[in-house]
């Protein structure tokens, strides 16, 4: 049921445009950050310039350049840099936080929420680090580029009155260091970055194979082979990274050389190679200014390489957040009736895939207990997705209490249908937080009642921390059966009139599953129960059984 998307990534410009759109509220802050950092840079450049002037000035007797200026600039540079860095980083982290929340909302609103199995955890974790990668966009690209522009302006202001030819040479060299070389590095990075990504994916997959297959490896005595395979993958990753490192080192060296060339140019002008010598004091000031200006833009070459990665990151973030926002949003509140009816429903996950359900008509009266059985991939879970309004039928209607589902609000539908499946997530949090999911209108009494109904209350009472017990990632500190009961308690707490159970006992052994179902029989009361499964265990109390096969839903003997 997972839909694999092979649509091309959104192009880089749209991606950045969208991200900057999210950042619009942060823009004033980011802009102030840039101004502050430019002020700090100016103070730094002025300091070097004045230091040069002053030194030369003292030597040739121009005592006039005030030493106070020097000291003030020095203090200004230190304080300015400190404040600037704090402020820009803070602004950047605010922007990243906004991006994360935006991403989460988009994911929640879009169909990407799916039923929890559309996207793998690996991709999601990469998206988390992708968001982090984007911090370089502002701190390492935008701010230094603005800095380079200021440095260029200052350099021209200092050099043009002295020697226009020299000014041109310096400007060209600075533009090389700040723009041309970073662009070259960007291309290198994009090319090499691709092969590194491939090698990384191969090694990561090899290691996932290894850890997941530890049992097989031990059972077949395959340790040596697997270890050497990992080492081969590691070597090819090292080779790819080494290649990038060499090219980067070269780019860095060339960038360094442009700075040195600029110094040589100023030195030559000072001693009058091919021109009348510069005035010593002014020349000396220019020399120091040149050194500082090139230092400020030296990080850009390296940032150029990262820019490629950032572009990819931006595209991935935008692409996965950019799922079509759910379908037609209804506006009507939930009806009081809870009869469910499917009328000639056909459905597929996307137009280029085969139909999963064809012309299905089905009635689930309020308070009835039905089972929908069938082999994996037959369309059972698609049915669940349709009922929960995660997907919409291509043809036909689904009625809830005789109102079409498409006209009802999403949350109204979901307040009537409580969903429990093996994909129901247990959060790495306390038992209480897992049960309430942030609701504040739940009393302890209600929690305990739900836990008791799910037949886990006594166990929780026995825990030293009770409701505050931390249950670990995916509920790992509980056994499989216990975890399922916690999920059941959460479902019961939702107090919805319809329970939709999508293979809730997968992965549990027969005895535990049977216990779970007999608990369920007791607590379901007069709720509607829709059970989706491979097969029945025989313990469930069921009024009707439907079988799904070849996109058709057929009644079967109960």
């Amino acid at each position, binding site marked *: 049921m997972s839909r694999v998307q092979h649509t091309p990534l959104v192009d880089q410009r749209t991606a950045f445009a969208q991200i900057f759109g999210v950042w619009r509220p942060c823009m004033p802050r980011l802009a102030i950050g840039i101004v502050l950092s430019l002020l700090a840079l100016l103070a730094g450049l002025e300091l070097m310039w004045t230091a040069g002037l002053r030194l030369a000035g003292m030597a040739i007797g121009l005592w006039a350049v005030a030493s106070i200026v020097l000291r003030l600039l020095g203090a200004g540079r230190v304080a300015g840099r400190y404040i600037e860095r704090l402020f820009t980083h803070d602004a950047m982290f605010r922007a990243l936080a906004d991006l994360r929340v935006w991403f*989460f909302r988009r994911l929640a609103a879009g169909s990407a929420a799916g039923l929890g199995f559309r996207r793998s955890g690996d991709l999601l974790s990469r998206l988390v680090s992708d968001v982090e990668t984007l911090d370089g966009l502002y701190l390492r690209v935008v701010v230094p580029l603005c800095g380079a522009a200021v440095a260029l302006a200052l350099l021209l202001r200092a050099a043009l009155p002295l020697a226009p030819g020299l000014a041109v040479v310096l400007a060209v060299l600075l533009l090389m260091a700040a723009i041309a070389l970073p662009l070259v590095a960007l291309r290198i990075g994009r090319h090499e970055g691709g092969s590194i990504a491939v090698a990384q994916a191969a090694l990561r997959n090899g290691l996932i194979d290894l850890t997941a297959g530890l049992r097989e490896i031990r059972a077949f005595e395959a340790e040596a082979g697997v270890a050497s395979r990992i080492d081969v993958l590691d070597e090819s990753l090292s080779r790819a990274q080494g290649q990038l490192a060499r090219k980067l080192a070269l780019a860095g060296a060339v960038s360094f050389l442009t700075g040195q060339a600029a110094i040589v140019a100023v030195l030559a002008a000072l001693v009058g190679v091919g021109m009348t010598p510069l005035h010593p004091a002014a020349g000396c000031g220019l020399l120091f200014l040149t050194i500082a200006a090139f230092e400020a833009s030296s990080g850009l070459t390296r940032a150029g390489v990262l820019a490629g990665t950032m572009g990819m990151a931006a595209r991935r973030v935008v692409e996965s957040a950019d799922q079509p926002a759910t379908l037609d949003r209804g506006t009507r509140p939930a009806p009081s009736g809870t009869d469910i009816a499917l009328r000639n429903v056909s459905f597929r996950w996307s137009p280029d895939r085969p139909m999963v359900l064809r012309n299905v008509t089905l009635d689930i009266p309020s308070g009835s207990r039905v089972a929908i059985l069938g082999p994996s991939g037959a369309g059972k879970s698609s049915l669940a997705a349709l009922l929960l309004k995660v997907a919409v039928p291509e043809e036909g209607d689904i009625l809830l209490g005789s109102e079409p589902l498409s006209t009802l609000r999403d949350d109204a539908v979901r307040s009537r249908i409580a969903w429990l499946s093996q994909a129901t997530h247990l959060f790495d949090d306390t038992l209480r937080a897992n049960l309430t999911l942030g609701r504040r209108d739940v009393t302890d009494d209600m929690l305990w009642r739900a836990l008791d109904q799910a037949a886990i209350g006594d166990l929780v009472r026995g825990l030293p921390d009770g409701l505050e017990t931390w249950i670990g990632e995916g509920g790992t500190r509980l056994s499989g059966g216990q975890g399922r009961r916690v999920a059941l308690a959460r479902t019961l707490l939702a107090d919805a009139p319809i329970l939709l159970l999508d293979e809730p006992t997968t992965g549990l052994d027969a005895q535990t599953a049977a216990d779970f179902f007999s608990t369920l029989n007791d607590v379901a009361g007069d709720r509607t129960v829709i059970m989706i499964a491979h097969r029945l265990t025989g313990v469930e109390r069921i009024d009707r059984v439907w079988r799904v096969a070849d996109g058709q839903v057929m009644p079967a003997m109960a």
Partner: protein
Amino acid sequence: MVSYKAAMSRDKQIVRAWTRAQARLGRRNARPVIAAGLVGTLIACAQAACIAALLGPVLAGHAAAMQIVWPLAGFGCLAIVRAMVLALGDIAAGRAGARARRRLRQDIVQTMLSAGPVLLRRAHSGALAALAFDRVEALDGFFARWIPASILWVAQPVLVVCVVAFVAPHAALVMALCGLFVPFAQAAFGIGAAVASRRQFLAMTRLQARFLDRIRGIATIVLAGRADDEAERLAAAAAELRKRTMTVLRVAFLSSAAIDLAMVVALVLITLGEGHGLVAQRAAGTLDPASVGRALFALVLVPEFFAPLRALALAYQDRAQASGAAESIHDLFGAETVSIDADEGRQSHDVPCTPGEARPSSVSVRFERVSFSWDADRGASLSDVSFRMDARQTLLLCGASGAGKSTIMELLLGFVSPMSGRILFNECDVAEMSSAQRARYVAWIGQRPVLFAGTIADNLRLARPEASDEALEHALAMASADFVSALPQGIHTVIGDGGFGLSGGQAQRIAIARAFLKNAPLLLLDEPTAHLDPATERAIFDTLARLAEGRTVILASHSHAISRFGAQRLDLVHGRVLESRVVA
């Protein structure tokens, strides 16, 4: 509480020891980087001398005494050499990082392999893979940047001061004093802050994990109608993350502000100090180009003096990564060292128990009062279990989950060893067999076979590396894996990530073919159809029945389809044998 603290400090010691040991190992590879750094500093000194030689006369107004060609050309040539040294240093740093990562990954992979499947009881396989991949990748900076920086931050400034001391002793003194101020300043606002930053680092990691967890469970949140509320809580968590990150950064920025301050002070003091002397000279009319040059020389070298200090401050977060990695490695493997040693000890006294029989054709199995516990706190998983089966018999393990069925399987597979009692194959204690010997007895099919990324043939040859293509085809035919021959590339079809996707039933058939190929006398079947629908389950059991012919079989399954294996039955309740009887 006291003992907890003691344990914490012991853990901290272990972490520190690990970090130190890694630094020692990394230092050899860092030598070229350090050498490049030192050579670079020397070249910078020579370049400063060129500038001084060039500008001294200009500033002193002795244009006639000016040497233009050699200082200018020298400066240019030195720049080229320095650029090359710089590049070589960068490349060497990259190589040092890569080598260290590879070594570390080999270590971790070896530890994982020798600890074996037991690890999966302690951590999710994804977490283990992340340790071996992401954690190790993140250590690149520790080896490539931190280790060289931790040496160069002393060596380079000392070198600069020594050189300057020859030419301008006063300036050298100023530099040295300002340099010494840096560690003092860092200690002044650093010590408490360093502890804080460690704590912040942990808090940051936790908050990141929380975000990831919420994203993973997004469907649960959305379908429970809690998305808006959760987004707000996430925003609060993100704000918290930002504040904590800023606290860490403030420390880092303060320390580099201290470096900046020291540098500015040095610049100003040297400018004023040397300048003062020059003004006096000028007043006396004896302005000497050489002394102007000396002042210039010292001044130009001030940034060179402070650059390594700044590099160290920048590399500090790489150091924090290393502590983090050490902690997670210790958490996972810390307890493991003991059992690994035991394993090696067993292999050393390799007494062949079944003389002359390289490939045993049949096997009887006996458990003799076997007890085992995964976790002392939770009590025994198996207590005092005894049973025996003759060769070519079938035994059915029954009981609820947690009754000890999987533990018996894992004991037979040698993933763990009994804490008391003996397991005997053909009346030989398996504890006295090498793991290779024992592996020859056993074929195993679990709930979900892991198929490795690669071709189907690669996956089959796991069982017998030297098997011919014909042998593979035969095994597939025996396992009724007809779908393989229908694939365009047959057994050379790539499966796994990015390859052909197999259904659960197909994967299980590959696993059965693997067992046919291995042809071991003892067949362990651990819920082999737990995830399959009834039709597929029936078909798989048909094939398994064929595989079981003439072998000793131990089967754990809840399915009703197993009645065909007319078998002995062992009922387990809480790790104890309830009764043993023959059905059908």
